[in-house]
């Protein structure tokens, strides 16, 4: 273990009854690092966070914080902060009292509580709301209070379990930059769970992709995006996965060119064609039944639904791993 590694998970396994949910998961988080755990629904992301914080029993593996094993340590003594999808503010306490809660249960001196709560209220721009009851807050404000409350006791690492999932798009955009700024300002290491790939790639110092209870890929966002390595990761990142000359490759929707049907091109039928904001979207069903998403450049002619078209790939990324395989790709991944 590197001295800078703060939280380390090794070979962690968990099950719901007889159904395995996590199978030998390994990952680590360094001091002040922002790691994003991504994966489709049901991949085990939330279960992994709950195991780390001690809310779910594990069937194998270990979790260490600054080299200290957390095995058998109850949740309230682990010193790991966690923010859930719903803010879970205490309805009978004001914003100020909510933020002070974690310091109060740790019996910190009153002066320290006052100082720290004020710092957190300022950091998350909550001072005008300090005396409000949680019921009187908007969805975004509640999440900011929940983050302030989580950060107040100065946990070395916080786990964020899709905290933006229940707010609308505009507030979500504001919140993610605010969260990132606050976490950077306090220097708190973060393990953030999301199934939104754009959010994950944008926020992360490093991403870890989980699928089917296993880590499929880990590394810096640009590195992982450039080399998804496995079909599962490629699909999650929005690539089309196709077999080209006997090799499984990933093709970005922007790299699929729609051409007239010709002997050298793959052919298919357009099943969806429309305007989708920045670029158009065309979906083509190939002769073998596979569907390709294409994002032709703005200004090009959009084919009608039902039209027979040809497709050509401008560039492809070979996938080195077989489906289901978990390649330890990425020099910076440290996944186990």
């Amino acid at each position, binding site marked *: 273990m590197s001295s800078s590694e703060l939280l380390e998970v090794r070979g962690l396994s968990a099950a719901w009854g007889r159904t395995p949910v996590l199978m030998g998961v390994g990952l680590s988080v360094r001091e002040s690092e922002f790691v994003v755990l991504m994966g489709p629904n049901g991949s085990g992301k939330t279960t992994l966070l709950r195991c780390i*914080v*001690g*809310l779910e*029993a594990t069937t194998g593996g270990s979790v260490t914080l600054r080299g200290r094993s957390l095995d058998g340590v*109850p*949740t*309230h*003594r*682990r*010193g*790991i*902060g*966690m923010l*859930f999808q*719903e803010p*879970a503010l*205490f309805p*009978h306490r004001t914003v100020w009292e909510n933020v002070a*809660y*974690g310091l109060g*249960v*740790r019996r910190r001196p009153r002066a320290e509580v006052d100082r720290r709560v004020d710092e957190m209220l300022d950091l998350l721009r909550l001072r005008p709301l300090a005396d409000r009851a949680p019921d009187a807050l908007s969805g975004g404000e509640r999440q900011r209070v929940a983050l302030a*409350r*989580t950060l107040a*006791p100065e946990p070395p690492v916080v786990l964020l379990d899709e905290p933006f999932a229940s707010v609308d798009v505009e507030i979500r955009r504001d919140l993610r930059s605010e969260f990132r700024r606050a976490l950077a300002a306090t220097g708190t290491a973060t393990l953030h769970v999301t199934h939104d790939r754009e959010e994950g790639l944008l926020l992360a110092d490093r991403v870890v992709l989980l699928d089917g209870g296993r880590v499929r890929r880990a590394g810096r966002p640009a590195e992982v995006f450039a080399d998804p390595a496995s079909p599962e990761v490629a699909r999650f990142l929005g690539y089309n996965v196709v077999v080209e000359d006997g090799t499984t490759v990933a093709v970005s929707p922007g790299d699929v060119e729609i051409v007239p049907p010709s002997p050298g091109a793959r052919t298919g039928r357009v099943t969806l064609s429309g305007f989708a904001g920045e670029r158009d979207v065309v979906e083509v069903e190939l002769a073998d039944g596979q569907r390709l998403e294409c994002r032709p450049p703005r200004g090009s002619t959009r084919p009608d639904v039902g039209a027979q078209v040809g497709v050509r790939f401008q560039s492809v990324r070979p996938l080195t791993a077989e489906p289901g395989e978990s390649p330890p790709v990425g020099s910076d991944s440290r996944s186990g």
Partner: protein
Amino acid sequence: MAFGMAVDRELVRLTRRLRGLGPILPVVAFVAAFALVPAAVLLANGVAANGGLGGLVRVADDPLNLQAISNSLTQGSASALAALAVGFPAGAFLGRYSFRGRSELLAVLVVPFLLPPIAVVLGVETLFGPGGAISSWLPATGPLGGGFGGIVTTNVLYNAPIVALLTAVGVESASPTLEETVATLGGGPFAGFRDAWGRPALVGAAAGAVLTFLFSALAFAAPLLLCGARCYTVEARVWSLDQVFLSPAAAAALAVLLVGFLVLPAALYLALVGRLRAARRSRERSPRPVPWRRPLLWPHAFAVGVLVAGVVGLLAAVLDAAVRPAAPGAPALSAFAELFGSGVTGRLGVSTLAATANSVFFAGVATSLALLFAVGTGYSMAGRPNAARGLRAVVFAPLVLSPIVLSFALAEFWRPAFGGGPTVGVLILLAQAALALPFALPAVEVALRRLPSSLRESAEALGASPWSAYLDLELPLVRDGLVTAGLFAFALSFGEFTATYFLATPTFTTLPVELYRLEGLRLPAEAAAVAGLLVIVSLVAFVVIVRGGRRVEF
């Protein structure tokens, strides 16, 4: 065509209005005619016949009345505290954790409530009375078989499971994320209790404790059979004044005090249950596996064990006593032969077969009435929180009046108008329906609340008439709730003793009344056989309720 469409439109409007206001009228009329108005007249007469409010003070000053008031208070409080001591930890455990057999355990806790109180009394005597199954093995438990101890034991066996169930409902309504948040912020088990699940659990437990207080302060069978006049509650004293001392004016005056005495706890119970329901509407918790390594949990698990042992012990004691020979040397089950023989019929003036038929008939009709009113009331409550509160209070009114005051008022108000004879039977089934309705309603209410609100609208948008939407979509979805409500009402009516005993003439004797009279005739084997029959009926109702995962609601 246009005319047809207009008729359809009017029909839809009419149906909507009827769905809103229509179903309220029958239940309000029923409770008014067969509970509130007769009771108001009785209480007014009680005040007038004793020379105004000053007369009530004189009635309260009577040493025997004063003792009855004191007995109600002490028996009610002691029973509520004891039920709370066992029921709260058990309910907290059952609400918070999941384990194999949890749902069956929750179901078993309903059993005592379905048992006729008089059969529970007999069970306590069999377990703790002289020569009882437990008292002969542990002589120190002897005081639990009779007197004050016996009454409190009966009340606790009957009510502690209710406290546990309501506590569990409270815990289930707490947000599990809130509790987990407390833990991740560094709060230990006490902080979790204080800030996450403790409040709703305490609301549930308090509702259970207040209900225990109400039932115990109104206990009738237990003081009569286990202790006698020195332990009479106000309820038993009202009966005694009217039917033993033939002093209806004094009984009516004491009834005024009794109703005044019950209003506050009844209002408190309704308020607590309202809070519990509101919290439950917002979320329902998924219990977590039991962290057995925490030593703090063991007393909770032990409390669950005590409750289950109480229920199982009670059932075993009653059923064992029922199958014992009627006399030394006689074969097992001989008490049943005696029970249905001419000897018992001759001494009681009515056959056990006739008493069984009466019980089935009264309980059947009372259940049908209660169910009909519960469905109407349930629909009227859906989506109208203010109306729901008012309706719940109306439906709960017969319980606040207490079974004795209700039957006393019914007899005084309706008998002069229609005379005796068959009227007595009608009054019995009306009293039973009024007393079963408050317990049938919650199951119907919960079933209706779980109906997706868009269901009927989708069906109507697809062209279904309101009636076919109800028959094809809603009825199948609320069927379980109706079955639960019906069986619960049937079991309660079948075992109803207090009001029926007050009203019944020998022709209208039911099985619980027969059981009491057999005890009075010192025929314990035959009485035990009747108790066995009553318990079997309750158990059948219970088994049908829990089959398919149905759950009794309060």
